[in-house]
Every structure is written in C-alpha cells, then in structure tokens.
C-alpha cells in the first residue's frame, strides 16, 4: 500500500448532503489518490449510486431529513469498505453500524488518514 496515497486508483462514493462539505471531502479523497469520486446528496441518489461498484465509501449518517442506514446496509452487503461521517453531535449510533470506522466533522487530517487506513489498509 502506498503510504502517501492510501486510496490510490480507487473509485470512491461520498454521501453527504452539505455540498461544500462534500466538495471538501472529495478534494481530500482525490488527494489521497482516488481515481474517481462520486458524490450523492440524498438517500435516493446514494441508493441509486450504490448499484455501481465502488472500492470504498464515506457516508454521512444524517442526511437532510433522513438517516442513511439503508445505503450503509446496501454497501456493506456488497462488501464495500465504509467510513461513517458524523455531525458535531453524533449521539449514539445503533449497534448494527457501531463497529464501522467513523470520523466526526470537521475532519482533522490525521483522524481522517487513520480512518482510511482502518477501512482500506489491510
């Protein structure tokens, strides 16, 4: 694995309803080596996107008025490595997603890198 570019050549899905946050995360992901980044802002968009094959995904747990659990389940079932992103106040996550690596917004670079290594590194 490339230490500087842990997402080298990967196709990544970013599920995030705040566009500027999605843009920032996409930019970070590209810098970590991703070949392609696809963004989805709603649960519907995310579920449709998840029909395609991705090498990894960043998923915001709370989309505008809905939880993203259905798309999390779908990606997991397809064996896609996942990183959950949570807001300032994540509360407690249900048990079925509690074991997934997660990062809190705003993203700190070291924390992000650790989560990426956690999800993709082995």
């Amino acid at each position: 694995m490339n230490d500087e570019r842990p997402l080298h050549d990967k196709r990544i899905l970013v599920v995030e309803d705040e566009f500027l946050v999605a843009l920032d995360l996409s930019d970070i992901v590209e810098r970590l080596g991703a070949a392609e980044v696809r963004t989805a802002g709603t649960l519907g968009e995310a579920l449709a996107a998840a029909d395609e094959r991705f090498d990894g995904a960043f998923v915001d747990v709370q989309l505008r008025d809905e939880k993203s659990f259905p798309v999390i389940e779908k990606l997991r079932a397809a064996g896609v490595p996942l990183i959950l992103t949570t807001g300032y106040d994540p509360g407690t996550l249900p048990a079925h997603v509690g074991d997934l690596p997660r990062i809190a917004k705003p993203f700190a670079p070291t924390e992000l890198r650790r989560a990426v290594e956690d999800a993709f590194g082995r």
Partner: protein
Amino acid sequence: MTATTDLAAAIVQTMHQPVLVLDRDHAVVTANDAFLAHFQVTAAETMGKPLARLGNGQWDIRELRALLASLTGSEQSVRDYRVEHAFESLGRRSMLINARLLRQDSRSRVLLSIADVTMQEERESELVAQREFSDKLIDSVREALVVMDRDLRVTRVNETFRTAFGVGNAETVGRRIFELGNGQWNIAPLKKALAEVLPKEHSFDDYEVVHTFPGIGRRVMMLNARRLDHMPRILLAIRDETERRKHADSQKLMVGELQHRVKNILANVQAVASGTVRRSASLEAFERVFLQRLQSLARAQDLLTRQADGTASLRELVARELSAHGWEEDGRLALCGPPVVLSRRETQPVAMMLHELATNAVKYGAFARPGGHLTVSWERAADDPAWLEMEWSETGLDGITAPTTKGYGTQMIEGAARQMLSGETAVHFRPQGMLYRVRFPLELEAPGGRS
C-alpha cells in the same frame, strides 16, 4: 280591671324586645326590663316621665312625635315605623317601632315596641357589600372561574369562563359541571381531581388537563381548586395555557432550526477554509480568497434575512455579487431577465457560483482587461417554465483559451450547479470571452403561476 292591667304589665315584662307603655300625655306608664337594659336607663329615671324628657330629652325625637301624633281615632296602629336617631350614650341607632293605641273606658294607652335593628342592618349592608365585592372580584379575574356547591353543581361562572368556552349563564348555572355543554366537561382527570382529590386535600394547584372540546378544539388548561371551609362552595379556576404552550413549542422548534442552520453554516465555513487552504500557495493568498468566499456567503445570508419569508431576488443577488467586485450596471455590465425569486436553499449555491465566476473574471476574464464586457441574463426555459436558464457571457476579449487544470473555484461552480441545484452546466471558452450556461429547476413558482 287591675287584674287585666297586671296581666298586661306582666306580658310586657316578659318580652325580649324593649316595650314602652305611655299614657295619653305620652308619659311612661311602664317600661319593661328589656327597654331599661337596652337603653341603659333605670326604672326611676323612666317611670312617670314624659317620653320627650327621658334621658335629658334624648327621646325627644321628631319622627317619634310625628308617629305618636298620627295615632288618632282613625289610625290606631303603625307597624315598622323606622326611626334613626343618635343617642348620647348609645350612638346612632336604627329602630323599627310598632305602635298601637289602646282605649279602655276613658283611659288611653300607647304601646310602643322598639326593635333595635342597627346591628342587623349593618350586617345586611355588609353582606350586600361582600356579595357585590365577590361578584366584582369573580368577574374581574382573568382566569375562568367556576363556583360550585358541594355536589359540583355550578352556582356561578365569570365573564372569562363564558367568553372562553362560549356559554351563557343559562347553560351553566344550576347544572353539574360534568353535564355542561352536553357533557363536554365530563373529563376523566377533572372528575378524579374534583371528586377524589378535593374532598381529601381541600385544594389542588396547577393540575394540567388537556381536552378537545367540540366547539373550541384542543385546549391545555391549568386548574386550581379550593374547597371553602365555612361555605358549601368549591372554587375552580381555569387558566387556558393553549396559546402560551403553542408559542413555547414554536419557539423551541425555531431554536432547533436555528441551531441546525448555525451548525450547517459552521460546517460549510470549515469546508471552504479547508478546501481553500489546500489550494493556497501562501497564507496571504489563503486569507484573500477565503475571506472573499466567506463574504460572499455572508452577502447571500444577508439578502435572505431581509425578506420575511427567507427568499431572495435573483437580480439583486447578481447585482450585489458583482458590485462587491467593483462592477455596477453600466456600459460594460448588463443584467437582463424577468423577476425571479430564489428559495433559501437555492440562494447560497447561486451566490457561490456567481462569486467564483466573478473572481475568475477579475483574474483572467472580462474584468481583467480593458474592453471586456459581461452580460448576465436569465429566463424561464421555453420547454419547461419550472426551469431557469442562466447565462454568463463575457465578450470583448481575444485569445481566451480553456484552462489546463480545474481550479477549486471551477469545482465549486460545477458542484453548486449540479449537486445543490440539481442542474446542468456547460462552459465554452470562446476566443472573445468565456460563456457559461446553467439551467436548474426552480423551487418557487413564478408569481403568475407556471402557465
């Protein structure tokens, strides 16, 4: 004869009420003990004395003289003759006097029985005053008040109650509270409180009852009740909390919504800062670009808060964004398009797009060189008026070519149009200037509808 007189005297003596027997000259023949005791005089001071001379002339009362004068042959008795008089020793007294003229042979006697009604009248007027006071009090209270007897039968309701619950006295007084308005008040928690709590506790306060009334809808009420000890009465005060609760609830919602927005704004500012810092060669460059982006976000926010409904005019948004870059509508800048109202959700990405386009124009395009010209135009799409088509057209330049790399600003423009506005974009780098087109579905309909 004497026996009769003695009997009469004895009867007079036994009476509880002060009685005087006068002769034809109105001198006292007999004064009973009740008289002596009540008016605090002795028999010696009284017997045989003319009435007018009694107690240093205290009994020389004009009304009494008139009463005695009226007892003539034709008018032999007077009842409840009211005399008010201020006695030296006793003070002001009110008396009701019954007088009767008795004739026996040549003798005539006047029988006066005197009822001192001073205390009674005082009590009565006090009672009237108290009733009036309590009536006024009950009606002046802002809370709805119900006065009931021990059987929970309504004896009174106040004006507030009648108004609040839309009932009159006729529909309330004399009925049990649970029967009011076809059983509208047959509320289980109220029944429990009145029938079970009150007999034990004497009172309860701030007892909340939520009930939906057929006429006035759902009400949140706070009830206070008192069982009176010395009167068979129960007071029930009802405060209508419905509006206050509604207000508090909407306040809570608004605070929640505000908090949500503040968090979003913070997340966005953080994202812009983080994206900008990665693309900045120096701290100075970061500061300039970041602050400009922040100011653009702030301008859009400012425009939204001006309108009570949180919308913004597209023309104003365009004009303000360009004005912030030093461009006013004149020979080099033209804005044209019909009035279009943007929703809160649309305003921020449109402002961001305009900001990045203007920044590029200042750096490389129409605003960077003399002769540059910009036209921003928009209209509703001919094939679907729910969609807006917007064009940013720079002209008057030459040798413009497409940039080799996509900057963060360009990514923001595309992302804003596609992701936040669910729209489509197209960019053409013409030699005379760049042409940028965006179309997106509008959330708000045109003022005249969509036709």
